[in-house]
């Protein structure tokens, strides 16, 4: 499914022929493969291709989006004709000459998934199963999912932008169940990278499985979390989900541009504690949330969102820029051609500070140390957020004591950001899938450990 530059220019012209200010076209071909494994054996292996194109017209701040699978030149022309009929009104925008964007990839791949024999992929899954079971006799089930995703996209816009990207992503999801008498707990570890099969040279399947198994075994010994408001230390890595939920979503043009964010109109104002600097960086080499270009053909970039507690930038796509009079930030993303793009996060993190984990723990008489966080969600208009704790410990008299389970943390993002009292000195990323208007997309969350005061801990003890 390759289309020439001239052909795409023609499609954009046809789309705008009966009215519309701007048009863009997104063409995608994604080869996916997956292995699912449980009860000590492969359950299913699947593979397939998601291929199609989406065409969008923007008039003012309104848009029309149409898409089709399995496109050829004839189908593309029909799509352009259909969308121009739906957009028929007003003046036609001009299609500028397409200028290809040339770059050196930040996502170099050394082992493309398609070059790896299926038996070798199955081998990775089996290694994870074995390592999980060997970790402890208490591990009674290991469920593994291997996923790889090889996506080629071409984007062209009437602004003259034209770019291609090749994004390869690999992920291994391991869930272990530990059993002790009637007690049963689960642990999970699921790293992913913007890499091919070489990901397993960086992170071994065994280490992923052992982490999941370790967590399940710790939880067997855990009591239910206490209830109430406590100071909380959230460790590095996936703990960054707190910023992602409590603040990140409310900085996306999707909500800011509709005045549906608590941070609308707060540019250059203090929104976080002065020790907080937060960044969304789509250019981190081979990271899970990275891409060379965004889904409107702009180069991705490193966006400082909050500097020393002051809001300095939102994450803005084309529609957001029109609504907000804010520069584009290379933040336009979508799950597939079946979604119109919108402003999304990439690899979002709180920058390193200067406290050590021991300093943070030592400063707390009674509180919670959250080693691993689960997912969460937020209402951007209010920033009321929630997220779940997967592995946590009580802090008593400055020291980590017994493990606890079954907790969630809730609060108001706008308040929590102000209550970050200490920021650690060792940043790490955690892998996640982020769901919003333009579908489910790979996104990294990250942070060094942070200490937050006054979070509501939803336990039951």
């Amino acid at each position, binding site marked *: 499914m390759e289309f020439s530059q001239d052909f795409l220019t023609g499609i954009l012209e046809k789309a705008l022929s009966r009215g519309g200010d701007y048009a863009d076209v997104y063409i995608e071909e994604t080869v996916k493969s997956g292995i699912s494994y449980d009860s000590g054996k492969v359950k*299913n*292996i699947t593979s397939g291709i998601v291929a199609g194109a989406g065409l969008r017209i923007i008039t003012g701040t309104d*848009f029309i989006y149409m898409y089709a699978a399995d496109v050829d030149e004839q189908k593309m022309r029909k799509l352009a004709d259909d969308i121009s009929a739906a957009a028929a009104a007003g003046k036609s925008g001009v299609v500028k000459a397409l200028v290809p964007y040339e770059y050196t990839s930040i996502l170099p791949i050394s082992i493309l998934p398609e070059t790896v024999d299926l038996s070798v992929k199955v081998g990775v899954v089996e290694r994870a199963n074995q390592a999980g079971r060997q970790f402890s006799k208490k591990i009674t089930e290991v469920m593994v999912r291997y996923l790889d995703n090889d996506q080629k996209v071409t984007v062209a816009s009437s602004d003259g932008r034209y770019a291609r990207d090749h994004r390869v992503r690999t992920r291994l999801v391991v869930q272990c169940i530990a059993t002790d008498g009637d007690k049963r707990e689960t642990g999970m570890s699921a790293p992913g990278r913007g890499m091919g099969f070489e990901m397993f040279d960086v992170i071994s399947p065994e280490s992923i499985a052992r982490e999941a198994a370790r967590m399940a075994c710790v939880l067997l010994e855990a009591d239910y979390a206490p209830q109430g408001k406590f100071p909380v230390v959230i460790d590095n890595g996936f703990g960054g989900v707190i910023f992602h939920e409590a603040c990140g979503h409310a900085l996306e043009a999707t909500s800011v541009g509709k005045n549906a964010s608590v941070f609308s109109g707060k540019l250059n104002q203090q929104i976080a504690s002065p020790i907080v600097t937060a960044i969304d960086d789509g250019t981190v080499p081979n990271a899970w949330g990275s891409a060379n270009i965004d889904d409107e053909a702009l180069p991705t970039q490193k966006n400082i969102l909050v500097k020393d507690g002051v809001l300095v930038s939102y994450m803005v796509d084309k529609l957001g820029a029109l609504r907000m009079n804010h520069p584009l930030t290379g933040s336009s993303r979508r799950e597939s051609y079946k979604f119109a793009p919108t402003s999304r996060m990439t690899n979002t993190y709180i920058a390193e500070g200067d406290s050590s984990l021991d300093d943070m723990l030592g400063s707390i008489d009674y509180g919670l140390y959250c080693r691993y966080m689960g997912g969460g969600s937020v*209402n951007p208009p209010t920033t*009321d957020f929630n997220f779940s704790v997967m592995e946590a410990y009580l802090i008593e008299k400055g020291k980590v004591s017994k493990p606890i389970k079954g907790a969630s943390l809730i609060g108001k993002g706008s308040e929590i950001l102000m209550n970050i009292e200490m920021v650690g000195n060792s940043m790490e990323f955690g892998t996640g899938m982020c769901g919003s208007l333009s579908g489910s997309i790979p996104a990294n969350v990250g942070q060094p450990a942070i200490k937050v005061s006054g979070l509501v801990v*939803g336990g*039951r003890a």
Partner: protein
Amino acid sequence: MSMSMIKDLLLKIVDKQPVSSELYYSMGKEIEISAFNGSINNFTSAETSGVGARVALEGKIGSAFTESVTDQSISAILQKARENSEYSAFDEGNVLYRGEELPDSDEYMSKDIDSVPVDKKKEVARNLEQFAKDYDSRIVNVPYAYYQEISGETGIVSTEKTVAFRKSSFCGGLLYVMASDGKDTQVGSAMRVYQNFSGIDVNFLVKEAADNALSMLGAGELETGTYNIILDEQVASQLLGVFISGGASHFFGENIQKNRSKFKGEPGEKVGCKLFTLKDDPLSGSLRSKTFDDEGVPTRAMVLAEEGILRSVVHSVYSAARSGVTSTGHSQRGGFGGGVATGLHDAFITNGTTGQNALMKQLDSGVLITVVEGLHAGLDPITGDFSLSAKGYRISGGKQGEPVRNFTIAGNFFEFINRISAKADDRRVDRMSAFSSPSLLIPDVSVSG
């Protein structure tokens, strides 16, 4: 291509297959229209389709999918599925359903969405926004006002004689509003699905979303403690649904076989209290109704639990074969690209006989929970433990009192279904969820505020 042309194409391909093979076709047509500030700010329209192939060979199964519905592409994925099966492992459950040719099913098609002009559909989105703004001056913003419609076709054919095709269509409205009194901001939402365009009730959606937001303004907080609570019908459906109809459901044969369920799966096993009667009725005529499942197995109404006693677990062909029984017609796929899993169709806890008000009266004092958030993360489907962010109202003197928020409720699914002390008669089926429940009264629940 029409459904009958697709059927002919798939049958022709399947007829040529030397090994046990199945093709699953699905087509989806969607229209999505949203209004913002009086104008139609998003109009999305598309039709896509695809085919998933499964090949079962010597107790191994492999699958593959394509979005290109042509003889050549479909033959290619059958070949790919066969290759994939070679690296799979033997399991007695890896067989295809030995089926029959079923009559085409089109009883769940909308009667009018294809004939209603697009402008009328745009008007629904515009009205949702405008009526919400007119409803109360404190509705300050309506970020999302959507009209959506979906029509789809699904077909299954196999070398094992299965031929099953159905089509269905429906439409719906979604509204998300912000209310502010100058000091406090609250959000509210409403979503409903309708078989026919003529059934859309804009005023109902507006009232629900706006009242949800407005009634929360100035909400107080709850003191940490143990409360008697009422889960309203939506919260009860969402929360219990994760454990009953979600992938880790304790009522699925596969999860029981693999020791992931809390239950042994034997009829007669005590799983809940007297008020816990759980049924699945795929033929009730609701929007979730289906005459056959995603493997082409005819569906039927079933009692899963009666007054707390397990009557039956549910099976796909895979788990049924592993247990040496026949499928109960509970196979479910997430489209042509998704794997085959177990799923419920239209499961529910049966209604009680009184309204929610009577439950509040019975309770005298406690908390009515109307919103829970974080369902995708704040619970462990296997252990049943959960801790979720919640909103609601105090109940005092047997009546709904002041709004409360910024608290969590925590507990365990198995404890909850063993401690339902009353249920209302207010179960709803118009959200198209696989599980629905009436409002439930649960005593002694941990609340952190």
